[in-house]
């Protein structure tokens, strides 16, 4: 039981960078812009955040530098796609590779240099509560922030007027424009805020989880974060669940090596990726008109729960996601 609590707490901690990255991407995609540079952006921010924290001796300045890096990459993506009409996919992909190589080149002198890291700080009194204490209140400030971030983003998106406008940018940009919303300017704003969160995700690796910098430090997780946002149907809670599931699977992967000797460990390492594809395919299958027709043939008693399950699973992408906005 104690071991289970320790493991669960470790999963919550391990998912922290993913939470920041996916929440940033969710905001950006809800506003209609795919930030495909995520993986490279995170790496560059991890490197710069670490280098700045090391030279200034201040973690806060390091995190700020990382956030600014992510925001700056997002700004370039915005300039080329929102203002100059280039494909978001193309620009994002190039930025992902470019930032990765930039982080390798500029960061070569910081490889495996010991540096500052966020200190473990259990919250007094709260951390003494059985079960809940060690699970939620025995971490560091960054992890606590990630716990607050998910409900905060949800509240902003679905309970505030600004959040309503944000969702309109992704779903009905023409309508938003007709009602006097500055579509392009606001898309820039949320793209940049999302980029800043992605930058913090990078620093969460180099200044907290992995404590230091090495080549391609986070390699792969940025791409996973992009898949998790789709997996979560652009709903903050479900995206967060996706992050924790992924962290749990990765822990299982590292454990299984000793637990099940006959099984090749690679199975567990690639399982999350395969699972992601299957879920994406399943969600699309369930939301197709064919499925709706099959459901109407079900006995009445099963129809309602089936419809609810399908409705819960199939959350459509923002209608105008990735589309350029042209003034009518």
């Amino acid at each position, binding site marked *: 039981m104690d071991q289970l609590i320790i493991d669960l707490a470790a999963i919550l901690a391990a998912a922290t960078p993913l939470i920041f990255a996916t929440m940033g991407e969710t905001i950006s995609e809800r506003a209609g812009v795919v930030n495909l540079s995520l993986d490279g952006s995170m790496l560059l921010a991890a490197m710069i955040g670490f280098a700045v924290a090391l030279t200034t001796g201040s973690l806060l300045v390091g995190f700020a530098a990382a956030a600014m890096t992510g925001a700056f990459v997002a700004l370039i993506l915005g300039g080329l796609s929102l203002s100059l009409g280039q494909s978001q996919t193309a620009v994002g992909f190039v930025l992902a590779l470019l930032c990765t190589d930039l982080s390798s080149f500029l960061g070569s002198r910081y490889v495996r240099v010991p540096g500052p890291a966020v200190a473990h700080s259990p919250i007094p009194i709260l951390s003494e509560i059985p079960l809940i204490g060690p699970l939620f209140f025995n971490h560091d400030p960054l992890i606590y922030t990630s716990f607050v971030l998910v409900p905060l983003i949800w509240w902003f998106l679905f309970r505030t007027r600004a959040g309503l406008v944000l969702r309109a940018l992704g779903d009905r940009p023409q309508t938003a424009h007709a009602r006097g919303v500055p579509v392009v300017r606001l898309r820039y704003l949320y793209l940049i805020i999302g980029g800043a969160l992605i930058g913090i995700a990078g620093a969460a690796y180099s200044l907290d989880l992995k404590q230091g910098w090495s080549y391609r430090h986070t390699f792969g997780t940025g791409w996973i974060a992009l898949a998790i946002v789709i997996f979560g149907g652009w709903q903050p809670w479900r995206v967060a669940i996706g992050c924790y599931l992924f962290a749990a699977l990765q822990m299982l992967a590292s454990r299984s090596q000793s637990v099940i000797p006959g099984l090749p460990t690679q199975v567990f390492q690639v399982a999350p990726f395969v699972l992601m594809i299957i879920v994406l395919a399943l969600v699309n299958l369930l939301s197709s008109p064919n499925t709706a027709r099959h459901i109407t043939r079900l006995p009445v008693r099963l129809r309602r729960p089936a419809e609810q399950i399908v409705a819960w699973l199939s959350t459509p992408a923002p209608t105008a996601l*990735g589309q350029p906005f042209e003034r009518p």
Partner: protein
Amino acid sequence: MSSEPRRSAGPQRGLIFGGVALLGALLFTSLVLLSSSVNPLEAYRLIFLGSFSSPIRMSDMVMLGAPLILCSAGLTLTFAAGLYNLGIEGQMIIGAVAAMLPLRLLSDLPVPLLWLLAFACGAAGGAAWALLAGGLRIGLRVNEIFAGLGLNFLASGIALYLVLGPWRRVGQASSSGTQPLPTDVWLPTLDKLRLAPAAPIIALLALALIWFAVTRTRWGLELRAVGMNPQAAGRMGIPATRRLAESFAACGAMAGLAGTIQVLGVFHQLIPSISSGIGLLALLVVLLVRANPVWVLPVAAAFAIFTVGSLQMPLALGADSSIAGVLQGAIVLFALLGRGLSMRK
């Protein structure tokens, strides 16, 4: 996530913007070099001319260029169809794995037949892996970018499993690679060099074939029509779904051939990182040349020159060789910038 089918404004203007983009990229890369206190002139001498400094370097450059041309040529097909085939790395890996099958199972066959089988299996393996992404995209509407990325990770998992498991080296399992192939099935090389002439020959033949298919056949025309507007193409009687699947399969086959070259001509074994990032580099190439195979040869050659040239950076200048990637990425980014500026009304 559609590619913009708008045409750029005339070849002259395109060349001017291309030149400006190159200058911008060089300026940006120089700033990066200066910030790491590396002399840009010294660095550029290595990046541009390092590949020509010795016959060995030149042969390395050709052996990188060949699979790069194959992948880029294949990607012009998917690009023409309006697809971003990010799964090309995985298609290369599975191609390499498939090429290993006849080499391991039928090693008694005469060597030329074995080569033929290896290339055929490699192409088939790459095509099958690409069709998997294509099926997910066409049948289940899973975005090909994410399907491709997931399948990349899966493919490298499979390669790693084979290297450490069933195909491990006799005696000890090592993640560095499988038992090397017997030397008589290695693609023959020029005297004392690593250059296997078969590799560039296959690459150029494939490139010519794809150039012909895209620009000189009805099939290529239909493919581009599907890329611009699948619905409209369908209404005109073009089997859009079929063309999409064909472009995936053809691109995967090219990647599979590239993977086979990596096995037969470069590494002579299966290694986990058999694709060496060549697929990703090819994606950069195709973002520059778009659906125009004519430019694949010069751009892929230039990128191969940069990559091999910069390999000497750590020894000669104490700087990381990833600067080649910075330059390549910056060129594409500035080209996109130039295209955007030139399309402005």
